[in-house]
């Protein structure tokens, strides 16, 4: 796993709380494929509180994807919903949790910080 994905999970864990997660509660597991190996990350959400840990446990929502796809998601170049429809992400279980988690992923890097017309102040 490259630094970007790992840094993202680390930051999530260090932060410990993000209001954007709303009232979502449950666990997600990411199975990240990289050069024939699978690295597993568990994320637990509890009404804004976030905990990230390594290793495989059963989770409410299980997500399988290549490392390159995850890197793209955390740097904003891959849209997870489109990627799911495209078949490069496999997911089973509670999609609601994955949609909540998506709120934390950044915008495309080429987006201007303030888009035209968005915030007049």
């Amino acid at each position, binding site marked *: 796993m490259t630094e970007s994905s790992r840094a993202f999970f680390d930051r999530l864990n260090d932060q410990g709380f993000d209001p954007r997660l*709303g009232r979502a509660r449950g666990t997600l597991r990411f199975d990240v494929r990289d050069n024939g190996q699978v690295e597993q990350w568990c994320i637990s959400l509890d009404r804004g509180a976030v905990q990230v840990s390594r290793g495989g446990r059963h989770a409410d929502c299980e997500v399988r994807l290549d490392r390159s796809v995850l890197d793209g998601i955390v740097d904003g170049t891959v849209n997870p919903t489109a990627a799911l429809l495209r078949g490069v992400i496999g997911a089973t279980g509670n999609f609601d949790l994955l*949609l909540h988690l998506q709120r934390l992923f950044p915008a495309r890097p080429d987006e201007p910080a303030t*888009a035209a017309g968005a915030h007049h102040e």
Partner: protein
Amino acid sequence: MSDSQVSILDGNTFVVSDRCGDIDPSPTDPTGLFAWDTRFLSQWVLTVDGSRLSSLSTDDLQYFQTRFFLVSGTGTVYVDAKLSVIRTRSVGDGFQEQITLLNHGEEPVELQMRIDADADFADLFEVKDALAKQGTYSRGVEDRRLVLGYKREEFHRETVISASREADVDEHGLAFAIRIEPKSEWTVDIEVVTTVVAGGERLDHTKYRGGNRRASPNMEKDLESWVGDAPTLECDWDPLERTYTRSLVDLAALRFSPLSAGGRSLPAAGLPWFMTMFGRDSIFTSLQALPFTPELAATTLRELGVRQGARVDDFRDEDPGRIPHELRYGELTAFEERPHSPYYGTADATPLFVVLLDEYERWTGDRKLVRDLEYEARAALRWIDDYADLMGNGYVSYKRRNEQTGLENQCWKDSWDSISGRDGTIPGFPRATCELQGYAYDAKVRGARLARLVWKDSALADALEAQAADLKRRFNRDFWVEDGEYFALALDQDGAQVDALASNIGHLLWSGIVEKSKAKAIAAHLVGPALFSGWGVRTLAEGEGRFNPIGYHVGTVWPFDNSFIAWGLRRYGFRDEAARIAAGILDAAEFFDGRLPEAFGGYDRSVTRYPVQYPTACSPQAWSTGTPLLLLRTMLGLEPIDGHLIVDPALPHGIGRIELLDIRGPWGRIDAFARGRIDTGKRSGLRPQIGDSRGAAKERGRRSRVHNT
């Protein structure tokens, strides 16, 4: 849908065929089996001994099931009636078709029956715009099943076709060698399953039987309990009872369950182009249906809320807090050639989200959902101030940032010429249409109530109320057209009034942004000759520069629009006017067998004597389906206040009695009774249409009895 086509549907799966049940390939018409915005069958043709069959009749058993009665031979003069064929098709996750051949003759018959099948896996957008495919097709026979596939990179869809009897399966279809004894029959069940392959696995989205791959669900029972859970309507006007039942069944048909909803459903917008979640349509339909099926609102709120915008993304016209406009599942969305994953380009869904949340709480007392969605509702309210005020003048306006595939018009009247001045001038962008200001006002007022009641944040409530009061004051000053005594349709990019008289002023009454002193003039316009056709309020007033009685948003009558106008009139105490509009629309429904179209012509009622359907392909459409429900609410004057249901009926002339039984809510179950003062016993022969009498609704309903059961 044209008259020569038959459609059955369930959620976002639907089949459109000809009257024999056959599907012929068409690159541009929505014929075929569709699921998840993809055409899984583009050809499905039944032949007996190499010949196609002739249709005797079709029987629409249920919205999800049709039966085709066919005979062999295509001759128009003589048909050999010794062999008949019955196809019964039920849609589910794909469809199931039972084919029965009946030999009426005295001799045994031997024949060859064949089904030819093909799938082009077109994205619905490709069918609309006739675009070419980029991936590769496959077809093969696996384990006596015909598997049609399409792959583009990892995007993988399959149609799997199998039969319950021995069949000769090849790559283009299934063939059966059949012998039928005299006066006997032969039957086969054919199953067509649509599958989505992702990450090497088949996504399990089976709606009615988790894990079971069979296409046929137990839908009949589901429909029975759906209708059974809704309040019972009894009245002395049969067409209204039929319209009511039609609405409930069509709403059931339009239920759509996104993958994240855990089997719960929300209203999709309409067949065939809009069988998916839309911010605006799903919210308006949920509002209309609240007294009848509040579960739709709960799912709409949850599913829109979880997809709320979180970042600034110009491709999707996304902002933090913005509620989605449209969600799609097809190939073009998957490859980001279209922005619908989801697309956010609408200016009304975000304030309306808060409006629905508040109205939902009033009808259900479900404060848990209001707590669960606190973050989303606050973010929606912030969006109004931080992202929607594009001109910096304190009004919600819209201008798309995705100029290739985004939507230019982000209000409900979304056609290119819908917003204009009296002289027909079309303004530039951004545009601040008037109804958006009403929705924003209402969202703030209702948000304040939720903040005080559920979130226990009185500072937020005070701030929202102050903002709402300020918005109302400014709006009544800046949008008021002095010489016409109505509100301008919009403010243009320079803040100047776009001054045509349009139906949008009715939504302003619904939102409560109209100052009391101006309400009478607005109500008079709504039922005046320029706007009111006799059937309903026209989208644009007769006499305006762009008025055209069959122009999509510039003169036609939209039933959904009228239902909210009637609600608005009731809100300001205009009982007769509201009843008059309800009467006109319900009269029109009778001409459409209880299924109101998206829109009909704005010709004067005295000229055409019947409502002229707008030539559109979208039926049933969700918010037209919800219209009779909201009109029932306005006629009965149902208003949920502090856990109680107020019933204050005002019936149109021509309806003597309406009883709506078992209305669910925090009050338990309540029956609402309404009586007109006309003597229904003396009527004989055909009832005059209820909208016909001049000054209808003179016969005002008496105060009703209310009791808990």
